């Protein structure tokens, strides 16, 4: 960007945030101030860099970014936040940046705090089964590290691409391949180190009292102040994540059915056995052989005999549900599907190329099981209304609810198609709320719908907490705002 244009943009920011003046009344050079903190190599205001950070891979419209900063230490994060707080500059912390709903694309410009340089796996405590990691550690690197150094342990790995971050997944209440057995990634958080917008560095969980990070309680549950808040309350710099035994044997068993109304009962019965590791439902209208409801159950075991027993039990269950007429075991599973089901992580991103358009977004609902048939039908209807082929991948979350994805592929080169995807997402979000569902990682528009429906006293509580923690409103502003 030419200096004059850059200065103009600076001035716009400074005027927008009227506190950005020094004692002497001179304008603060934001770029140079950030460079002084992290070094010049890790700050950019170049249009080419900010362009990439001003949009994500979903269908949300782009929003401008002024600076990208990549801190390397907690002290740098602290100094950046102190500076941003002083100058009232918005800060949006970013992990993998792959929510697809543009949660970490700033709504009010300012600084994107890309955490990927903070990528150390600080400690793995094998006996107490936890990993203490920095915010930029990717799913892939933790998985590879565990495989190499602690092969008996695993962490819950999401379907997202491997470059996304573990901390990001935990903070957006994400889920992984062992969620049906152990819960959401956010349930696996033992503790955190956080930097508050006002610069204080706090430790939460057992590390607040001891030198160990092995448990979240039993003290007030402060990690909850940072989980699901989309970066509006502070920056998580370290996180202790629970690890779990890694069984040696895994197998997939797939059932098929065409009875949409039977879905709640089938999910209930399959989870009632309490023996599965992962459980998802898929369908796809094309090709025809995929146009059924598939119940995909991943079984794992520490012993071959144990696995054989689980396979036998699940094979038999089909005979019991609906007198053996509701679901049937899929024999001779296609090798590609077999691999797709057992791969951790699976290459789910290929869905973006279904229409050779490079675009994919989904509206995700956390539903109680009884709401699935209505959403199943509605999702197909919405897809058809917008000229799309319907496809689903839903994961059962423990034995209590399901993450139901209204999936929409679109052509990134076709503005009308992008608009159609946005419209489909909006219709899905509205339907989720009408059906008493909860929208997961909702975009700014979805958040508005949620806040509008939210109990006013709860909305007021959210506002009070935000105000107390972030008095100048610098943290990812625009998210979780109470409608006026």
């Amino acid at each position, binding site marked *: *960007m030419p200096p004059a244009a850059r200065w103009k943009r600076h001035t716009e920011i400074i005027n927008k945030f009227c506190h950005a003046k020094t004692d002497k009344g001179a304008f603060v050079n934001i770029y140079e101030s950030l460079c002084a903190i992290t070094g010049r*190599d*890790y700050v*950019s205001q*170049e*249009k*080419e*860099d900010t*362009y*990439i*950070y001003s949009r994500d*891979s979903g269908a949300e419209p782009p929003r401008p970014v002024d600076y*990208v900063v*990549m801190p390397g230490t907690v002290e740098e994060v602290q100094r950046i936040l102190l500076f941003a707080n002083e100058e009232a500059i918005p800060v949006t912390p970013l992990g*993998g*940046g*792959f929510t697809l709903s543009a949660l970490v694309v700033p709504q009010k410009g300012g600084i994107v705090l*890309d955490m*990927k*340089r903070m990528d150390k796996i600080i400690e793995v405590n094998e006996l107490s089964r936890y990993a203490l990691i920095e915010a930029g550690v*990717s*799913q*892939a*690197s933790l*998985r*590879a590290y565990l*495989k190499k150094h602690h092969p008996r342990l695993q962490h819950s790995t999401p379907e997202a*691409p*491997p*470059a*996304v971050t573990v901390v990001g997944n935990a903070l957006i209440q994400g889920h992984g391949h062992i969620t049906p057995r152990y819960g959401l990634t956010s349930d696996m958080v033992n503790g955190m180190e956080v930097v508050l917008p006002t610069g204080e560095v706090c430790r939460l969980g057992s590390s607040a009292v001891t030198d160990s990070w092995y448990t979240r309680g039993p003290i007030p549950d402060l990690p909850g102040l940072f989980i699901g808040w989309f970066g509006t309350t502070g920056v998580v710099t370290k996180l202790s994540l629970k690890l779990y035994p890694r069984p040696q044997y895994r197998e997939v068993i797939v059932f098929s059915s065409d009875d949409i109304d039977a879905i709640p009962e089938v999910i209930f019965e399959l989870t009632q056995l309490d023996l599965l590791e992962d459980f998802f439902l898929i369908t796809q209208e094309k090709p025809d052989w995929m146009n059924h409801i598939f119940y995909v159950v991943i079984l794992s075991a520490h012993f071959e005999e144990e696995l054989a027993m689980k396979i036998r039990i699940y094979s038999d269950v089909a005979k019991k549900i609906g007198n053996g007429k509701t679901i049937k075991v899929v024999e001779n599973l296609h090798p590609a599907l077999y691999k797709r089901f057992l791969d951790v992580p699976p*290459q789910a*991103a*290929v869905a*973006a*190329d279904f229409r*050779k*358009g*490079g*675009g*994919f977004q989904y509206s995700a609902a956390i539903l109680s099981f009884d709401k699935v048939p209505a959403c199943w039908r509605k999702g197909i209807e919405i897809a058809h209304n917008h000229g799309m082929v319907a496809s689903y991948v839903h994961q059962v979350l423990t034995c209590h609810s399901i993450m139901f994805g209204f999936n929409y592929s679109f*052509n*990134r*080169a076709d503005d009308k198609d992008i608009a159609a995807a946005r419209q489909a997402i909006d219709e899905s979000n509205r339907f989720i709320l009408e059906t008493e569902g909860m929208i997961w990682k909702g975009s700014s528009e979805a958040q508005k719908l949620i806040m509008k429906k939210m109990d006013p006293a709860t909305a007021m509580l959210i506002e009070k907490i935000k105000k107390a923690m972030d008095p100048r409103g610098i943290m990812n502003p625009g998210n979780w705002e109470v409608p006026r």
Partner: protein
Amino acid sequence: MKYEDIIHRCFRCGFCKLTDDYEEFNCPPHKKYRLESFSPGGRMWLIRARLKGDVQISERYQQILYSCTLCANCVTHCIFPFKEDLVNIFTAARESLVEEGTLPPAVRDYLKSIQTYGNPYKEPSAKRGDWANGLSVPAYDGQEYLLYIGCVGSYDERARKIARSVALLLKTLNISFGILGAEEICDGNEVRALGETWLFESLAQRNIEYFKTRNIKKIITLDPHAYNAFAREYKNLGADLEVYHYTQILAEKTAALADRLKTDPLEVTYHDPCYLGRHNNLYDEPRKILAALPGVKFAEMVANRGNALCCGGGGGNFFSDILGGGKESPARIRVAQAKETGAGIISIACPQCAKMLEDAVKAEDLEDKLAVKDIAELVLSRLETK
């Protein structure tokens, strides 16, 4: 721009940045800068943004395009059907900068030198064969093979030593070959990589014509970059050549030297050059040579074959240095990876890798622990002198 019809299909999911097992980020510019704009997906989106007029050509845009080493890690690890075209897309984007005459000075200077001198070193063509002085290497005169050296092997001091080793070994193995010396013409691989398609095609046509005139059918190349140009690109321009990298020849012949080779223990690792490995799938031949050396214990780096980290010299960066050095430079990371194996030697099969890694060994202060040797140098050093 070519490939305009597929460029929007990149989802920017990031598999392209990683290795097979996702253990390491493996895209050289992304590894160095860490900004998403320097990842293959970031580059794809920026090229499209430029086509749409959302960003303009700028120094940063040039830096992002030209710091890519075209190492093909993205091609190997992308999960989409258009993956084979990723390097071609990046090259096409560079072509459009050439067409508009908006090149970084280092790239412009490289191309100008090739046009003016026929080599990037601004040396006279007459000196092109000087690397062979004193070796009694025959000029090409209808022998079975032409040994093609290329610009780096002809003019760079370090690479010349490698060229001499290769020639000596071929002689020792009684391979029938000759060289072109001053008549050799630049193969143009880096010219193409930097986006100057017209100049590349002109060099290629000159070479193809010359090879025809001299009835040259079989070529052994010193440099994997030249191998890539001849074996892949020239074929598209109608060349009918049998092309070998010298490691392919040695792989078949080294065992024959067994009783003349030293047997004292030596621990060696191997760095896969991108233009040999990922671009042309030649992974086994260098390893076969090492396996044929008595006493040599081979220690594989964790990141090997399709997962090998580029030395940082590819895509023209050996000359332009747009990716640049520093602690996060791929060559320095690569020698650290080599050190982890415990081997005392990193063997290589590319004169450009040799130079990049040798500089990195110095920068990492590992000179007393790690030596960089071309495979030909290594084999020669194991030959008992009679």
